């Protein structure tokens, strides 16, 4: 995923922001709720 992020995020700041979001709240917030 991290390696393919460039397909989605085309801006370096966006990528930093996304990584910060994931580091803060985890990837689970972006994924569908289980069940």
């Amino acid at each position: 995923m991290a390696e393919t992020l460039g397909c989605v995020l085309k801006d370096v700041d966006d990528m930093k922001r996304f990584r910060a979001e994931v580091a803060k709240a985890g990837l689970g917030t972006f994924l569908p709720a289980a069940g």
Partner: protein
Amino acid sequence: MREDDPEDPEMMEAAEYVTDAPVATSVHPAMRLRKPLLHRGPGRRREDRGRQGDGAHARDEPDPPAVLRRARRLQPRSTSGTTRSSSCTSSWRRQATTTGRWPTRSTRSSRAVPARAARCSGDHAGLAGRRCCWSTRCDRADEEFEAFMLEVFSGLAGDDPRDRHDQGDAPAARHPDLESHARAVATRSGGGASTSGSTIRRLDKELGSSRARCRGSTSGSRGEIAQFMETLRQVRLAKVPGVAETLDWAQALASLHADHIDEGGSWPRRSAAC
């Protein structure tokens, strides 16, 4: 007889081998998609290679390998440098919606040449046997045109018999979690029931187009990708990813045989078959 170390990274990079695993994972879909791909990750620092840098820039910016530098130069195939304006696409759309047929080359404006054309089979909205336009940048040019094309491709995905043996899922099946996730997205963004409905429709369109374009991806990964992208768009980004980016990502994940996006381990998780 050469005395060089066969595993010397410098030598392998000179021969356009990629020695860094994360970079190789990025290079593969970039070469496959023939598109530039932004890569950020740990790399060798320029100052480590004895170059003169300028402060923070030199510290932060890794020097990409030769293959990645070449991949950056790859551009989507375009036709004879022509440009497509919104007015052209609007007239195409009007003509297609009023006549039920996609405009032929003779009736189009000479500058309105699609960036990429594909032959579609079957009678989809009167497009039988005709070339239909698919531009990876249509979302940046004209939102209405993008919506129209997504409608067309959603129809293609649902009606095309080739989709029916795609991982054994129903041609127009909605992902089971789609509705609940759309409601969650709508609630998170402060919207009501109408927002939820529009979110569902948008996700449905995105799923349909990714189903049409990315035959290597499974229905589960397509649903996850669509939902992930919908959530990602809630984040304040300088450049909000569009449907084109979704399709690129789905193709990249399919090329890496990634079945799921999950938190455990390195994500996406690779399939057992791979």
